[in-house]
């Protein structure tokens, strides 16, 4: 029990987010998905805040809880009861619900030619959900759709944090999840973005992102939720681990989840080692000036002959633009769209 809390709080401390009593009150955004990890994170933070309040101490930070409703793309609908339960149990925080398709309200709407017809149907501007679904259905594979949903979710959270002047975002990713991401982004050709996507305090999009659960395995968090009093189990609503019905539905992200399920079982330290290893990579901006990708916002590496000539018989030698579209996108996103 204590082990989990200690590891989480230690991470906050290292990232100077715990808030000393001299520091100004900070606002930390905690995106929740009702998965085990984000619920544990909220619980531990709430505990710390209550303990400080009881001791009559300066709380140091406020929590803004953000739930991204993905019912537009998920088979099962989101349960409003769950959010009410959460608010009852942890009443002292601010709660907001946004829908995934609300990304349209922020200024990172994509104007790639591939998505141009997603805006209108000839008669007028389409509603957000239809536009969003059109973009998804224009993508070539289940892997691409899952990738796009991840990108949009992340960008939406970051845009929300910026709009609401949050000081930091605390993501609930466990060690296991970060290891999955490391290999998954590597497999999707986004190795260059890893420092952006998994490192604490990464310079990503100008806001501090921190992963306080980075030292905890998914199975440890799973054990934790049933050990608290009362248990956190009723607050957790996870999509049953998707076993795709056909190979067409298999995604790279899904594959990595499966892979690390077994690695975590047999070699938990190797999972942690993957995260430590990828955490050593330097963020590219330190090395060179790099453009950001229109889609994922991550850096674009210089393109050079990479063993692939897709449609043309000419290799794309030292083509710095990154794509033939109006706006530059990264290698990984070029695979996705």
């Amino acid at each position, binding site marked *: 029990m204590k082990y989990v809390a200690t590891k989480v709080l230690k991470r906050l401390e290292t990232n100077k987010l715990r808030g000393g009593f001299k520091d100004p009150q900070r606002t930390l955004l905690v995106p929740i998905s009702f998965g085990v990890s984000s619920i544990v994170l909220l619980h531990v933070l709430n505990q710390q805040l209550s303990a400080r309040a009881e001791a009559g101490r300066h709380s140091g930070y406020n929590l803004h809880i953000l739930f991204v409703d993905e019912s537009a793309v998920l088979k099962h609908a989101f349960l409003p009861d769950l959010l009410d339960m959460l608010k009852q149990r942890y009443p002292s925080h601010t709660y907001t619900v946004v829908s995934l398709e609300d990304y349209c309200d922020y200024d990172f709407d994509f104007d790639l030619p591939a998505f141009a017809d997603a805006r209108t149907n000839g008669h007028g501007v389409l509603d957000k959900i239809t536009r969003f679904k059109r973009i998804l259905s224009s993508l070539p*594979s289940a*892997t691409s759709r899952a990738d796009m949903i991840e990108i949009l979710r992340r960008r939406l959270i970051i845009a929300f944090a910026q709009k609401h002047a949050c000081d930091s975002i605390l993501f609930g990713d466990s060690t296991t999840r970060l290891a999955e991401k*490391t*290999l998954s*982004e*590597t*497999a*999707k*050709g*986004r*190795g*260059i973005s*890893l*420092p952006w996507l998994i490192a604490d305090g990464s310079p990503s999009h100008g806001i501090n992102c921190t992963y306080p659960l980075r030292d905890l395995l998914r199975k440890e968090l799973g054990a934790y939720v049933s050990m608290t009093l009362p248990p956190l189990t009723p607050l957790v609503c996870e999509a049953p681990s998707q076993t795709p019905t056909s*190979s067409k539905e*298999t*995604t*790279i992200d899904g*594959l990595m989840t499966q*892979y690390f399920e077994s690695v975590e079982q*047999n*070699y*938990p*330290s*190797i999972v*942690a*080692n*993957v995260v*430590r*290893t*990828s955490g*050593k*990579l*330097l*963020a*590219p901006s330190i*090395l060179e000036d790099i453009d950001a990708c229109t889609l994922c916002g991550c850096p674009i*590496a210089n393109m*050079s*002959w*990479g*063993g*692939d*000539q*897709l449609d043309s*018989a000419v*290799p794309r*030698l030292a083509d710095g633009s990154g794509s033939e579209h109006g706006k530059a996108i990264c*290698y*990984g996103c070029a*695979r996705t769209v």
Partner: protein
Amino acid sequence: MPPTPCALCNASRALIIRPKNHQKLCKACFISLFETEIHNTITANSLFSPGERVAIGASGGKDSTVLASVLKTLNERYNYGLKLMLLSIDEGIKGYRDDSLQTVKRNAVQYEMPLEIVGYDELYGWTMDQVVSQIGKKGNCTYCGVFRRQALDRGAARLGIKHVVTGHNADDVAETVMMNLLRGDLPRLARATSIVTASAASEIKRSKPLKYAYEKEIVLYAHHKGLDYFTTECIYSPEAFRGSARTLIKSLERVRPSAILDVVRSGEDMARLVPAEVSGGHRGGKDVIVNEGEAEGDGGCGSANGRASGGEMADMEKQLLENDGARDNETEITVNGHKHDPNCNKSNRMPKKLRKQQMGKCARCGYLSSQDICKACMLLEGLNKNRPKTQIQVSVEEEDSSPTLTRRMEGLTVIPGHQT
């Protein structure tokens, strides 16, 4: 239903679904595309210079046979002006190498290339069969890797050649990227992705022209060109990490055909993000990693097919747990008088002092080495002394770790790592 026309020439009937992107192609277009891509790899990286003498590391397997065939074709088509030769290693593995060497001998005639064979027995006085009968199947890939690296260099030196090309393909590179993420070895990840590796430990440059070629396309090419190659894989056991990474790569390829190239791409990009203090070498210009340690090997015999016991993964797990314990107690591990930061990864655990050591010559065999006695001689000493099995076994999973090995030989307990 009318036959599908080829997506490139639109004339002939498409007979091949290209593994890299599922494009439907006719046989002629596939072959010319495959060759053109390798030509692009060669020219984009300026791999060769006119008049250069190049040895092809030939095992008789599909990769090196296709490499020899394509290089011969391209050399004639584009006037590279190369003098190509075949260089083979005879590890002394009955039922595997003796048969595959017959294939190489036929290739030498087919491609009109001179062939040089260097044998472990003549170089070291031990065949791999003899090594295995002494140390058992576990960890023998270490011996094979160390011996092969030297043997290739010596073979090249005998031929007066400064450039050896090997048949590593995109699948091999992708696999190595994943494998080194799993075992936390960024320096090796970086080296595996660079198309050319030069090393202070060797006067011989290594390159991999098939770096972007898919294994499946290599097989297709060999099939459609009717090439003569040997299919049996090495009979001795592969590394568990490689086996696990290989399975993963194959699944990724099924989900998204471009994934192998994408992993290679990620690896290349990550190589540029490896901090200098971790990489243990310096960047020697575009895509060339100059390694101050000993030359990178072929990663064992590369014949992993996932049937390993998982022994090394378990070993590493155990080791990491011990490290974690040390980390949690905030203790410093001191080995051999050098302070070790328990937080630093195995790959940079080697004290700077050892790393910066001047390359000299092995006191026994004269081969370039950062130690007084080179790794091969060190392994040989162990073999020749006929040490008890347990003492030699501590060096499993090590390929490039002569300092660690040295210490082990001195009877010290050191955290196993994959230093290079």
